[in-house]
């Protein structure tokens, strides 16, 4: 009995501080936000608390908010899709065709930019994409006389910046699942006469689904919640649901509306995770 009590104390002392911290800084704030999203007004001045659904109603009655949410989702699909198209072949080559120290070095090179500040990387794209910037100059020198390329404040600029930010995630997760494929499986297929294309579609792709799914979630979720990338790279054209939520807190001080929109966004994220979870689980079991 004494050992059992001591054990309990040890667990409480070891985990208590970390989880108390998380409670105060993550879970309490989310609860406070949920509470205020159902209030008529934010915590400014003296007024009695008053339950209200009007901020949730606002989303369903104001068309432009739904448009912006849709725009954010669309942005998420575009960025995730491009990351798959660019990242999967790169991950495949790295995982299956390159060996030894080279692979290690290249892998590190691909994840390294991740660790430079996201904001700084967005800033660097504003310099590359500006008129008379590096991209413009490079294109002009190859094909002179082409109209000037100015991607400042445009949707493509936002997409380029976001793909740049999140591409390493896709390469990383695809690399991990591709690396785990047993070579003898592919040899067996080859010896039975399967063509490279068949092997890719019937064996490699299905086995890479967990990596593709994990990468997609890791990219899609932060992209639909992004705000400073669209703001800095898209300018006036960069309004998405994320920038609207930000404005409720930094400019117009309508915290309840910001909270309601945040929770609608979070609900969509959870819905996506719920849909993706069985896919991930099934594949984990079969592989």
């Amino acid at each position, binding site marked *: 009995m004494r050992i059992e009590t001591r054990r309990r104390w040890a667990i409480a002392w070891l985990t208590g501080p970390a989880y108390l911290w998380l409670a105060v800084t993550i879970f309490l704030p989310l609860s406070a936000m949920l509470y205020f999203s159902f209030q008529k007004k934010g915590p400014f001045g003296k007024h009695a608390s008053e339950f209200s659904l009007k901020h949730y109603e606002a989303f369903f009655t104001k068309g432009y908010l739904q448009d912006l949410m849709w725009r954010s989702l669309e942005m998420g699909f575009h960025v995730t899709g491009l990351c798959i198209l660019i990242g999967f072949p790169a991950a495949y080559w790295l995982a299956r065709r390159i060996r030894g120290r080279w692979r*290690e070095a290249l892998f590190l090179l691909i994840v390294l930019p991740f660790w430079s500040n996201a904001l*700084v990387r967005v800033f*660097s794209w504003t310099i590359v994409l500006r008129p008379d*910037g590096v991209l413009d100059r490079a294109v002009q020198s190859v094909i002179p006389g082409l109209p000037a390329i100015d991607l400042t404040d445009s949707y493509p600029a936002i997409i380029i910046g976001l793909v740049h930010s999140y591409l390493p995630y896709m390469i990383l997760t695809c690399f991990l699942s591709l690396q785990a494929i047993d070579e003898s499986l592919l040899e067996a297929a080859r010896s039975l006469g399967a063509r490279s294309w068949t092997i890719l579609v019937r064996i490699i792709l299905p086995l890479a689904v967990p990596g593709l799914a994990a990468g997609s979630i890791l990219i899609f979720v932060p992209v639909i919640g992004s705000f400073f990338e669209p703001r800095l790279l898209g300018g006036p054209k960069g309004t998405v649901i994320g920038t609207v939520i930000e404005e409720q807190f930094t400019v117009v001080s309508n915290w309840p509306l910001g909270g309601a929109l945040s929770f609608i966004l979070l609900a969509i994220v959870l819905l996506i*995770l719920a849909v993706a979870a069985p896919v991930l689980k099934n594949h984990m079991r079969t592989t």
Partner: protein
Amino acid sequence: MNQARLTVLVSEGAGRLWLFLVLVFLYLPILVLAVMGLNDSVHYTLPFTFTTRWYEDLASNERLLQASFNSVAVALANTVIATILGTMAALAFARYRFRGRTVLQLLLFPPITIPWLIIGTSMLVLFFWTGIGRGLHAMLLGHVALSLPYVIIVVGARLASIGPDLEEAAASLGATPFQSLVRVQIPVMAPGIVAAALFAFAVSFDQFVISYFLAPPGVSVLPVEIFSAIRKGFTPEVNAISTIMIVISMTALLLFARLSKFGGER
């Protein structure tokens, strides 16, 4: 040369070219950023004329210096707190099987997966409401919360690879639990702890979103300062400070990679 051999060569070349292009895409803007920090033109125009004046100007830019100091101070405090608390929790998970263990481990995911925008604004709401307020202390509260899950996962992975054998051996040879902790467990955990600390430092040093919502006017950290510079107009000085930031965080990751044997089966 036969047909099959040619196909292999072509696809081999295409694959390498693709990887090379991906690397160019990832590094080009960062290189441009660094090079323009060494270029004399305020308007980022070519031809390139080498200068170190933007770096020299940094030395007299009070705002940026203060923000850098704040950034480093918050990141260091964050590293110490998150590493200690996280290592403790990781030890509990590695040593004990208890009710609620799985739930506690699952609770590590919300701070990683919920968009920072939502976490940051929620913190703003609660801290304002309860009187904790905004400022460096609030940022520290937030940064530790974001770092903890990573520390617990990284140290936990190291502990899992060690297993309980050493601890049992120490106990059977008569070490007290304290001796076992200090003389046996902490030394074998050390690479994991240092790796987690570097990770925690980078999480805080690079964190923009949380800091942005918790920064009151007049108090800022580097990323917040850079953000307002980008919006209000900037000079290559911002490139200079950005380059320094990139070098610092990339060095942290390289050290982390060495310590945690990350990304390769050595």
